[in-house]
Each structure stands twice: as C-alpha cells, then as structure tokens.
C-alpha cells in the first residue's frame, strides 16, 4: 500500500510539474497564427533569425542577425532605394567628395525617449562607431583606412565627416545597419544597449519590447516615429505594429511553418524552394548573400605559392557542379569576385580561367593538399566535398577537415600552417568591389588585415586607392576592373557562385531587397 501511494504521489507531482512548466513556457505566449495556431493577426509579422542576436548595439554588430535587428531599431543617415540609389534616412541631403562629406540632418526625427535627433547626436554616434576602441569590424569599410573626424553643427543642421584618406564609397557605407544612429541614452549605458534594455537608445521605427533568449523577441512600432525614408516608389502595405522574431530555427522547419501559416516571412534553404515554387500564396525573393570562392593559402611553405598549381585547380572547377552540390542549383552565378549586382562588377565570365581537366590532371596528379572547409557551405559542407572530389578525380590527394564556422575561423585566421586551400564565403554587406578585394588581396590577417589567404598584392591595393580617389564612376570602375582581372588571371581565387539568400513571403506580406541586399525594415503587411 505504501508503494502504491508513493507511486500515486510521484505521478501526481510529475503531472503537476508538467502543467506548471506549460504555464512557464507555451502558456505564456499568445497564438497569432495560421491554420493551426489560431486566428491570423493583421498587425504582427512573424519571422525567424538564424540565431539569437549577439548584441543590440548596432555599432558592434558582427553577425547577420545582429544587422537584421539593428535595421529595425536604429535609423541610418542614408538608405538605399529599390533601384539601389541612395535616398535619405536621417539625412535629407548630402554632398561628398573622396575625402569629406556633409550631411544635412532632418529636423523631425526623435529617439524613442523623445529626444530630438540633432546633428551632434548623429556625429557622436558615428564617432563611437568609428572609434577603434569600439572594436568594430566594419569601420574601415565605411570610412576607409585611418580615423575620420566627425563633427555636428546643430545651428547649421549638418554633420561633417573628414576622412583620413580618400574613400569615395563613404555614402554607400553609411547605409549599413551597423552605422545606425545610437541615441545618447544608449551611449551612456553600453551594457544596457548591448542587452537592448535601454529604450531611449533607439532611433529607428521599432523598440525592443520583449526579449527572451532563444525563444522570441518582440519589436513594437513607435507611435511617434516619423522618419520613414521616401522611396521613389512608395512601399505597398503598412508596417507591422509588432515584429516577432524566432531565433535559431532550422530552415527546413521554417519552411514547414511558412506552409502551415505559423510564420509569415523568413529565409529558407535552397532545397526547400521547390515547395514554394508555383504556389500563388507565396512569393520568393532570391539575392546573393555571400560570394563563395576557392581561396589558396599563398604564404611561404604552402604549395599554392606556385601559380601553375593554382591555375590547374582553377581549370578543374565547375561552377554549375559546385552550385548543384552546395545550393541545389539555386546559387547566383558569379563572373568575378563580387555579385553581378555590385557596381563595377565584371559584366561577363570571360576573365574566369577556362575549364581544362586534362591539363589540370597533368599538373595535379600525385600532389597532396591540406584543405579546411566549413560545414555551413552546402549541406554538411558539400561545397568543400565537391572540391575534394574534383581534385581526387584529377589524381591529387586532399586531406579535408570539415569543421564548424568557429573552428574554421580559428584555423584560417590564426593557424595558416594547417591548410593549403579552403572554400570561403565573402559576405559583402557594403556592396562594393573594394570590400571583397581587401579580403582577397589586402593586408593579411597576421598583420591586422582581412586577407586570410596571405597573398598581399600591392598592385591591387594601389588599384583600390585609385578607385577610392576617383571623382567619377567611370574612373572608379576602370580601376576596379583592372584589379578584378588581375586577381582572376593570377587565380588568387576561383569564384563559384553567390550563396543564395532566399526569402519566402506568405501572401499578404512583403520585403524589399534593393541592390540585392535584403532590407528588413521594408517588411510590410500588404493585406
């Protein structure tokens, strides 16, 4: 009898615990959606994040999810229109040369705590972004080499930026979400800013109203927000009153949720695209998220200091085969080191090394290479596996280490002796040729640069300097064309495709991707 009552008590306790837990978790959230989750809300957009944002401090954002949430919370001074041209954000007008810019700041913008956004506030925020102490990974891409001087003139309503060296792509850099203006309350409490708890820090249309790590984040539209950009063609629909983000969702799971109406807009995996194709209830937008290329380690001791070996490997590679292996054929074909949508990208593939498997075999047979690849390029690193198999078929031996992103970064950035070649993803958020050039042929990582291949090329750096000093687009593109052709003829890299960012939108929801860059703040409810 004692046993039975104990058992009953234990069972009752377990059941009670389970019901209490449902109160802590699922019971605590309201259902907004879909065929299986209740009535569709007309003022909420549900979307997914790859992972939790590592910070809500826009200036320190260094992962895709960080940029995405920053776009909602912080306004930038300049934005991109649907055709990629610059339009006003917090700035209504701007004048710039290769070495300086003057931005005129709009007068009706305010922080979420009501503080008016003045030129001084804008200047302080941009100075914080540019400060080396902020340890920002993007400062040099926006302001170029050296430290800029940024001042605000409240009487004139302008912000002046003086660059240390010519950098004619400053205005494009200022469209980055990382340059979003942080209001004084945020700069006064950097810990709270990172956690997203300082409401007054936000200058954008939304504030963070709920934050539950790994579960969901709610952003709520500000009633007092007026600083919407003026697009040449007004966006259809209305901004959501609430945007709810679900972090860390498996992309195939997200596809299921889109189909059942539990999610409204989200990135999906290439393999899931066919589930939405031909379905009138969904729209799919595909843009190149990151350029994927084969990169050689050109440091002393690596076999790929030999240009003949690099050429032979390039002769073996086939873009379509890589695309099929890594991205189910949905990758965007590259003619050069940057996406075709980037200004000054090479217009055709005539500069790519032509395939010649026989010639390649003659050079590569019997050779052994160390390769490191990340499992995130293609399913379980299928992109790197393709390269390994292509080389194996040519008679070479490839010792491939497939590792996660963190380990890949450690090996490629700090242990150059562990690899000879790798498949690299180049997320070019600024959308400039220079951003990719510095990664391929710029200052090596051991000297504080971004180039993990180590093949520093003074001629390329000179071409970048020429392009940045150029006063017109033609001169700039000439310099960039020369640099791109030089890299491709030297086979410093072998371009594959652009990793596709595929955004599926349920009927009634839309998002824009000006210049091939998804702008999350353009999310709208269209029904």
């Amino acid at each position, binding site marked *: 009898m004692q046993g039975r009552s104990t058992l009953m008590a234990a069972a009752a306790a377990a059941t009670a615990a389970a019901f209490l837990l449902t109160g802590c978790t699922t019971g605590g959230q309201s259902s907004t959606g879909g065929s*299986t*989750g*209740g009535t569709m809300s007309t003022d909420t957009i549900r979307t997914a994040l790859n992972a939790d944002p590592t910070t809500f401090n826009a200036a320190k954002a*260094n992962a895709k999810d960080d940029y995405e949430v920053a776009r909602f919370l912080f306004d930038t001074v300049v934005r991109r229109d649907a055709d990629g041209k610059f339009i006003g954000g917090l700035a209504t007008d701007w004048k710039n040369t290769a070495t300086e810019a003057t931005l005129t700041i709009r007068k009706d913008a305010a922080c979420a705590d009501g503080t008016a956004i003045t030129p001084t506030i804008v200047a302080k925020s941009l100075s914080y972004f540019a400060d080396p102490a902020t340890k920002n990974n993007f400062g040099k891409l926006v302001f170029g080499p050296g430290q800029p001087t940024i001042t605000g003139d409240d009487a004139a309503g302008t912000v002046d930026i003086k660059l240390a060296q010519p950098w004619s792509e400053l205005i494009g850099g200022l469209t980055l979400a990382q340059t979003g203006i942080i209001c004084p309350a945020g700069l006064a409490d950097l810990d709270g800013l990172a956690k997203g708890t300082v409401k007054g820090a936000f200058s954008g249309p939304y504030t963070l109203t709920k934050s539950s790590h790994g579960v969901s984040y709610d952003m709520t539209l500000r009633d007092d927000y007026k600083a919407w950009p003026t697009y040449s063609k007004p966006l259809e629909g209305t901004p959501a009153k609430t945007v709810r983000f679900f972090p860390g969702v498996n992309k195939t799971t997200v596809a299921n949720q889109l189909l059942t109406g539990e999610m409204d807009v989200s990135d999906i995996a290439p393999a899931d695209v066919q589930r939405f194709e031909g379905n009138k209830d969904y729209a799919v937008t595909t843009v190149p998220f990151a350029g994927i290329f084969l990169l050689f380690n050109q440091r002393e001791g690596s076999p790929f200091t030999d240009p003949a070996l690099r050429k032979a490997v390039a002769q073996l590679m086939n873009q379509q085969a890589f695309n099929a292996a890594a991205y189910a054929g949905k990758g965007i074909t590259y003619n050069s080191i940057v996406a075709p949508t980037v200004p000054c990208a090479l217009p055709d593939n005539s500069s790519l090394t032509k395939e010649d498997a026989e010639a390649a075999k003659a050079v590569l047979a019997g050779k052994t290479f160390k390769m490191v690849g990340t499992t995130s390029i293609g399913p379980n690193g299928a992109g790197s596996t393709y390269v390994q198999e292509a080389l194996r078929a040519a008679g070479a031996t490839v010792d491939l280490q497939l590792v996660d992103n963190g380990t890949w970064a450690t090996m490629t950035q700090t242990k150059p002796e562990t690899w000879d070649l790798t498949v690299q993803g180049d997320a070019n958020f600024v959308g400039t040729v220079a951003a990719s050039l510095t990664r391929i042929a710029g200052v090596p990582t051991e000297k504080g640069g971004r180039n993990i291949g180590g093949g520093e090329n003074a001629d390329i750096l000179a071409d970048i300097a020429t392009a940045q000093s150029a006063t017109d687009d033609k001169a700039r593109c000439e310099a960039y064309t020369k640099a791109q052709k030089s890299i491709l003829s030297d086979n410093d890299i072998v371009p594959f495709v652009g990793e596709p960012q595929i955004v599926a939108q349920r009927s009634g929801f839309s998002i824009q991707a000006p210049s091939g860059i998804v702008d999350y703040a353009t999310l709208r409810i269209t029904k």
Partner: protein
Amino acid sequence: MTEPTMLSKEVQILESQTPGATKGPRGRALSLSPWADYALRRAGGVLLSVALLVVVTFFMVPLIPGDPAVAVAGADATTEQIEAIRNSLGLNDPLYIQFFHYVGGLFTGDLGESFAYSTSVSQIIATKLPFTAELAVLGIILVLLVSVPAGMLVGILTRGGRKKWLDVSFGMLTGLFQAVPQYVVSTMLVVVFAIILKVLPAAGAASLSALILPVIGLSIAPICSIARVVRRETSTVLEQDYLRTARGWRLPSLRLYARHALPNLLTTALTLAGLILAGMLGGAIIVENVFNWPGLGREIVTAIVNKDYPVIQGIILVLGFLAIVLNLLVDIILGLIDPRTLGGKSNG
C-alpha cells in the same frame, strides 16, 4: 460468507510472498534504520558525482576545437581585436586560475557570462530549461501511461504461450518503432499532422497544441522500450507461485493484476523510466530541432558552434546534476515500493 476468510488468507499469502512487503531488506531488522544507512551512502555518492561533474565539465569543454575569441570576434576581426577579446574573457589566465574562478562562482550560484551573448548563463538556462523539462516530464508521463498498461495487457493476453500471433506482432511493432530514428518519426508526424491534415502546428512553442507532436516524437521509442520490458516482466511475474495461488482463489482481474502484479513490474519500469527521463532532458536535441522547440538541447549545440564555454559548461552541469537527482529520486521511490533495494546498488 466465505469471502472475508478467503480474502484474509489471500492477503496473508500474498503479503508473505510479495517481496519486501513487511520485512526489512534481506531479513534485516528495521531497527537498523536502513533509510539512515541508505541516506548516508547516497549522500556521499551524490557529492562525489557532483564534484566529478564539475571537474570533468570544466576541463572537458576547452578541448573543443576552435578559439572562442575568434568565434566571438566574428569575421574580419583583427588579431588585436581577437587578443583583446581573449583577455576580456579571461582566456589568457592559466587554466587552474580559471577553474578557481569557476568553482568560486558556483558556490555563489554564478555560472558566468555567455561569451557570445550579452547575458548570464543562469538567465539562459532559466529561460530554456522549463521548455526542455516540460517536454521531458510530459514525455515520461506519456511513456508510463502508455507503455505499462500496453506491456501488461500483452503480457497477460499472451501468458503461457497463448495468442502467439499477438506476441509476435507486438514484438515486431515495438521493435520497429524503437529502431526508427527519432528524426524520421518526428518528421513524419509533422508531414502527416501539420502539413497534410493541418490539425496541429508544425513547430514552435506558441500554443499548448504545439506540445503534442514534440512530446509524441520524443516518447515513441521509449514507449516501445518500456512496453517490451513490462511485457516480459509481466510474463515472468504471472508465472510466480503467489500469482498462481491468487488466480486459484479466482480474484477479480483488476485486483489481481493492478494490486499484485503491477508493483512487482514497476521496479524495472521505473528504473528504466528514470534513466530515460534523464536522457530526455539531455538528449532532446533532435526533437527540439525538428519542432523548433526552444529548449536546452538546441542551445548547447549553438553554444558548441560558438565555442561559448560558460554556456556549454553551465548546461552540462545543470543537466548532469538533474540526472543525478532524478536517479536518486527513482532509487528513493523504488526503496519505498520495495525496501529490499535499499541495501542494493544504486542506479546512478
């Protein structure tokens, strides 16, 4: 009029044959206080287990390949930035200093700060543990509610070689579902109930109905495992003399099986259930991924990718501690049901 007499005899016979019903373990006198002895032994075991858990957790995690500072710094970080981050995370301190800080923090309930996120490990665990615990507790309740009656029923119906076809079918079906990977079962559940029938959510934790598919996905294999064990145990118990005698007395079936057979089946079933519950808490990763369930399993995978040592250590420590506590609880319950187990070895 004979019923009371028969029942009295029945009780006497059954109580004399029901193991451990009245006497202490292996005939020892109750005055030796087996519970005090047991508590002392188990307390020592628990302390040793926790100490080992803390040490192993701390020193195992840094063996994960990759540099946390590089992972935190993100793409394009300079070596200076990486070094500054390494310093700020305390990774340049000797390992024994880091260990002292870690243990010192544990004594004050501080599991540290996440390397990757601007939040404390305790907060991350406090947010996500309820989700995993909810799945696991509901899962184990479902497992026991289904597997014990099902296993008993089949054991009773196939007693003494009866209904051979049922025995074979039961063995095949439970063997099949036990063998099918959790990922496949869970995906099939989504396809059928969410995508085709549209009666349940495909994923997420937005509503109570979202619990149904993950709990089923998590429970199917354990249900089959325990049902098979219970079926075998039932066959064995039903062949024992005291139950033959009980059947001879023509006791009502419910009384016969629920009162006299069930308690003797539960020792094995509960021991298994305890282990399965601990496994569910720590091993719900696949189900959490398929159903986008925001539990600890998904968190630890992300933490490993991010090289977020404090989060990995904190989650393993908490899950390990829960496993120790669960095993202790199972042993206590078993001791209450069958005091003979107090003298035996523990389950964990």
